[in-house]
């Protein structure tokens, strides 16, 4: 069975500084990896995904994520944080292969960007 770990419940960063939200995964075979963001009292919004190809994936709102197969990681990054980036971030994984498989989510990391 696949699993996702987001080791930090909360990440604090000052506006203008780079940010990293960590994610590691466990899956049989090659992974499909996703990042979602959730603002208060809203649904999850898709940010970016890794399917295959370039290990650096660019997504919405200036976010990017780097796939590292040897470390089984898919960390979310942004060069310069904004206060409006403050939200709950979820990493998710599904395995490559035939047939249907569910998307498994991590527990989420709260990002707080201070002015």
């Amino acid at each position, binding site marked *: 069975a696949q699993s996702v770990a987001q080791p930090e419940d909360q990440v604090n960063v000052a506006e203008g500084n780079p940010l990293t939200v960590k994610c590691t995964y466990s899956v049989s075979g090659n992974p499909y990896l996703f990042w*979602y963001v959730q603002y208060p009292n809203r649904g999850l919004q898709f940010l970016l*995904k890794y399917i295959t190809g370039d290990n650096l994936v660019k997504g919405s709102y200036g976010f990017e994520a780097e796939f590292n197969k040897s470390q089984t990681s898919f960390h979310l990054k942004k060069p310069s944080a904004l206060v409006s980036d403050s939200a709950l971030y979820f990493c998710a994984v599904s395995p490559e292969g035939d*047939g249907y498989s569910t998307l498994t989510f991590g527990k989420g990391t709260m990002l707080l960007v201070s002015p």
Partner: protein
Amino acid sequence: DAGITQSPRHKVTETGTPVTLRCHQTENHRYMYWYRQDPGHGLRLIHYSYGVKDTDKGEVSDGYSVSRSKTEDFLLTLESATSSQTSVYFCAISEEGARGNTIYFGEGSWLTVV
């Protein structure tokens, strides 16, 4: 927005009563999902559907049933609500299955069981 409407958005109900949450999509996507979100657990899959009348269980399906009689509608029913089912419920859709396909979420239904 992904063209997903959940109703009701907020509901308070009593223990032991039946509750039905509705999800309606305008995207004509084949797959529909119900997740619940709880602090410390992230999102957990309850049930999903891969077509009209085709459904399957997820990770936390006990106490829940679903139905899909039309492509656009996916109903989640709590036959006899319990306090442990107090949660935020999210409907989601995708064109095809979870392998590599983006899943889009609705705005959520807040359910409180007292």
